[in-house]
């Protein structure tokens, strides 16, 4: 901004040496990458010492030129200077393109607008790189939790899955550096395998509107944005370390970026994070440590007309799961739920024992683009992902150190996209994608596979367009078709195969019959349509009304199709159904955004009507040799989710500001006329911030986070007879915990070490009053309180 004002002053101070020549050179100056206009670019006719600035529309005009050949210099504060040779023989129009890059080091443009066009008619939320830094030692889910309408489904404190407007797991698609994450996201206790430190920023699209990414995001899409690189010779980086009291955790992350004037760039980033057992206010949460290692690297070439880049990331996460949550049957559950403190509390340790998860995710991607003059941009991308998930339960004998689950999911994807700017007001994008996926369940676990071996093939084609009708109206339209074919090999118990009626429905699937089991080869095809339509209306300069309808179709996931036995981490038997059809969501969303002076707000009501919504619910209790277990069966129903997200902020003065967030969602099973399980309770966040940029960017904030009690829930309780007490006890797995209120405080300051290096120090405390609480959306809430007070120190050096 300052540069811009400077340029304006510069323009007005210029003298015009008028000559007898009377030709005019005019045109626009735009960014080569996204055609955005470059306001304030300086255009200088070198021989004449004539100069002008591009106006608000990127237009410039220099008059009084003679009929000869001139050298023209075009300069913009954020771009490298370029020289052009123009021959004047009349009035000439010349459009200049510069390579405009974000000055990433100073994070000048990291805000909502920098990330462009995921959807123009659906409310998007972004998390900037600087906000992500404060979550350096937390998970992606924790960082996303800061936004309105986003909550998380937790398994303890280390497995945090984002929930968007009440939906999670397979209903959310995560796009990481342009790659759709394939990391067994269907599981409720499978957290996203992403290191927040590798991300340039996060964008959340609360719906399926971005059909260029996927058509099955019934809940929404999370886009992990890559960093942007400048085209100039530079070497820079940052190192960030966090120490936290709760869990006695430390984390260290470092990043080094090299860019060159010729367009080459490279980036190396890594993270090491280690934490021992965490604490609830009154006791240690035994076996809740975490050890995370991740590494990512990019190398690429970015030229005016073409570019190529290769990306690789490695992510390894070893996560301890609360020891007291590993149980036998319902009799153990009664003991665990009724106990005030967890059944197992041991001394603090860094060691991570069973039950635990150990996950390794590799992601490699290569992408190339070429700009075809007059047509648009063509991009081709291939990615490979390998997700290896090991889950360790408490076992006996020789199997003690072996995992109970070992799944290796490999995915190959090719994307071909074509992006055209047909006119100033019409953008068009189309593309095709193909994916091959193979899942291998390692039999050496010695435990029957709940998720079978399978091959899956996907093919998708999409087109999206947006049209700016006038200053006020913009329309957006998109459609997508996805074909998917799954070819699985699954062992069923013969008794189960018959009792589900599969022997009549799918006799062709049977490959071989064994003693008590039968090997089957289920093959299913799903054809899914998805679409989006939206409009944006700008009025009174600073108000905007967005409306969006999106249709999403999701094929059932492997867990919903194939589950047929004990799910140890949930202490229940889960049963899927081969007969499931695709789930179809219709989401209507409206958003009113505006700002008036120091006040800005956004109100986003929505309704999501989902046909054939797949729910998992208890149907019976089975007496096994290990005691009683509740049986949960997947079922299709119609669901309705109705909610609203509200954001508001107000600047009292230059130094004081206030932020408010409020989210409510109501989810119902329409057929059974009862509430859906695990719907986020109403919650509100309010934050008061003091900031003094002049005084080392001193910032102090206090945040209140109030979560109401969820009063609408399905009653899934059941009874179990206890031999010891000769009583019949109610196993209360339904009643949500009470409301809670947490206070978090934080202070930070920046110091300039020298011209290029900056030191930032932040210190803060979460759950300041060490409040004991349980979170309805934590799957381990039956067994232990949530986290107690945590004080952290965060030191960052930019260089």
């Amino acid at each position: 901004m300052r540069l811009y004002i400077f340029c304006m002053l510069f323009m007005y101070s210029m003298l015009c040496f008028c000559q007898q020549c009377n030709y005019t050179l005019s045109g626009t100056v735009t960014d080569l990458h996204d055609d955005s206009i470059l306001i304030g670019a300086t255009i200088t006719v070198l021989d004449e010492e004539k100069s002008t600035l591009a106006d608000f529309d990127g237009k410039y005009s220099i008059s009084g030129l003679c009929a000869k050949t001139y050298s023209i210099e075009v300069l913009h504060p954020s771009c490298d200077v370029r020289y052009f040779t123009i021959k004047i023989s009349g009035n000439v129009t010349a459009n200049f393109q510069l390579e405009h890059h974000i000055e990433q080091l100073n994070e000048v443009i990291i805000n909502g607008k920098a990330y462009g066009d995921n959807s123009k008619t659906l409310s998007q939320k972004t998390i900037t790189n600087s906000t992500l830094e404060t979550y350096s030692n937390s998970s992606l889910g924790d960082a996303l939790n800061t936004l309105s309408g986003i909550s998380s489904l937790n398994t303890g404190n280390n497995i945090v899955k984002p929930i968007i407007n009440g939906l999670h797991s397979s209903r959310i698609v995560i796009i990481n550096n342009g790659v759709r994450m394939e990391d067994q996201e269907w599981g409720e206790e499978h957290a996203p395998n992403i290191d927040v430190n590798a991300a340039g920023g996060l964008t959340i699209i609360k719906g399926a509107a971005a059909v260029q990414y996927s058509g099955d995001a019934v809940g929404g899409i999370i886009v992990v944005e890559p960093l942007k690189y400048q085209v100039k010779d530079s070497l820079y980086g940052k190192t960030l370390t966090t120490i936290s009291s709760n869990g006695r955790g430390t984390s260290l992350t470092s990043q080094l970026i090299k860019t060159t004037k010729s367009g080459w760039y490279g980036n190396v980033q890594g993270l090491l994070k280690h934490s021992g057992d965490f604490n609830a206010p009154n006791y240690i949460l035994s076996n809740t440590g975490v050890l995370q290692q991740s590494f990512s690297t990019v190398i690429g070439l970015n030229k005016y007309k073409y570019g190529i880049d290769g990306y690789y990331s490695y992510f390894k996460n070893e996560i301890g799961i609360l020891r007291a949550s590993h149980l036998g049957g319902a009799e153990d559950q009664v003991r665990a739920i009724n106990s005030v403190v967890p059944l197992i509390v041991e001394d603090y340790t860094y060691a991570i024992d069973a039950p635990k998860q150990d996950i390794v995710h590799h992601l490699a991607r290569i992408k190339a683009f070429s700009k075809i003059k007059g047509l648009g941009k063509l991009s081709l991308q291939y990615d490979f992902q390998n997700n290896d998930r090991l889950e360790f339960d408490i076992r006996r004998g020789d199997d003690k150190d072996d995992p109970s689950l070992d799944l290796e999911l490999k995915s190959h994807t090719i994307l071909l996209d074509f992006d055209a700017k047909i006119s100033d007001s019409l953008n068009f994008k189309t593309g095709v994608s193909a994916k091959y996926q193979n899942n291998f369940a390692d039999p050496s676990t010695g435990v029957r596979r709940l998720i079978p071996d399978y091959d899956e093939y996907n093919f998708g084609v999409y087109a999206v367009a947006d049209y700016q009708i006038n200053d006020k109206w913009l329309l957006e339209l998109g459609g997508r078709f996805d074909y998917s074919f799954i070819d699985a090999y699954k062992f069923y118990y013969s008794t189960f195969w018959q009792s589900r009626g599969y022997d009549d429905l799918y006799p062709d699937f049977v490959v071989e019959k064994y003693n008590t089991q039968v090997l089957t080869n289920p093959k299913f095809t799903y054809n899914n349509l998805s679409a989006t339509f939206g409009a944006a209306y700008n009025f009174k300069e600073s108000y905007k009304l967005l409306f969006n309808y999106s249709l999403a179709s999701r094929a059932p996931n492997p867990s919903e199709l194939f589950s047929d036995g004990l799910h140890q981490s949930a202490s229940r038997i889960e049963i899927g159904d081969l007969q499931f059809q695709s789930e179809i969501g219709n989401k209507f969303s409206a958003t009113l955004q505006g700002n008036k002076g120091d006040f800005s707000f956004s109100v986003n009501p929505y309704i999501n009507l989902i046909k054939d919504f797949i729910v998992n619910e208890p149907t019976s209790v089975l007496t096994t040799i290990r005691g009683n277990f509740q049986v949960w069966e997947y079922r299709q129903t119609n669901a309705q989710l109705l909610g609203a997200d509200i954001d508001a902020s107000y600047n009292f003065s230059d130094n004081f500001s206030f932020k408010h967030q409020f989210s409510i969602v109501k989810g119902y099973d329409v057929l059974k006329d009862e509430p859906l399980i695990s719907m986020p309770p109403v919650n509100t966040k309010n934050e008061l911030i003091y900031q003094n940029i002049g005084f080392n960017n001193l910032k102090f904030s206090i945040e209140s986070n109030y979560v109401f009690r969820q009063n609408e829930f399905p009653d899934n309780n059941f009874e179990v007879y206890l031999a010891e007490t000769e009583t019949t006890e109610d196993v209360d797995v339904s009643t949500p915990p009470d409301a809670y209120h947490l206070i978090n405080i934080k202070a930070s300051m920046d110091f300039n070490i020298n011209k290029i290096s900056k030191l930032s120090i932040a210190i803060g405390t979460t759950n300041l009053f060490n409040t004991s609480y349980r979170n309805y959306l934590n799957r381990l809430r039956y067994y232990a309180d949530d986290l107690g007070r945590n004080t952290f120190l965060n030191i960052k050096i930019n260089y």
Partner: protein
Amino acid sequence: MKQVNLFKAAIFTLFVGLTSCSDDDTPELINEEEVITTLTVTLTPDDGSATVILQSQDLDGTGADITVSGVLLANTNYSGSIVLLNETVSPAEDITLEVIEEAEEHQFFYTVGSGLNITTSYDNFDSNDNPLGTEFTAVTGEASNGTLTFTLRHEPTKPNTGISDAGGETDILASFNVVVQ
């Protein structure tokens, strides 16, 4: 020219990637080695009368079948022994041996329902002299009936005063309706 080469390279990489992944083998059958399908309690009276067998069996995870071979005689000493089998493999695997091997981490509990006149005591112990309980003695009193429940806990607190403060995780839980006459 350079641009074209980059595209060729990308397409080449992609095909190599796609063709290097075929795995057409059918998966192998898993016979769970660790699973306990059958609990058999043999009660042998010291007066030479008929042995009573209590059994809970679940071969395919669809629920346990409970059988009691006969009635217990009143005022009799029975020596009891518990055998755990995995019958999904052939020949059946004796899991009791593993439990005995890890005696410090296991304990059987016997819960006698009210109305049933039986008292139990442990006959085998771990290396710390805490009860293990695959061997036990059951003494019947006057004629009565009620439930007799066997619970195997993994990693219980040892020593303990009984099942109520033992903690741990239930590996086996089987209740039998027993008649003493």
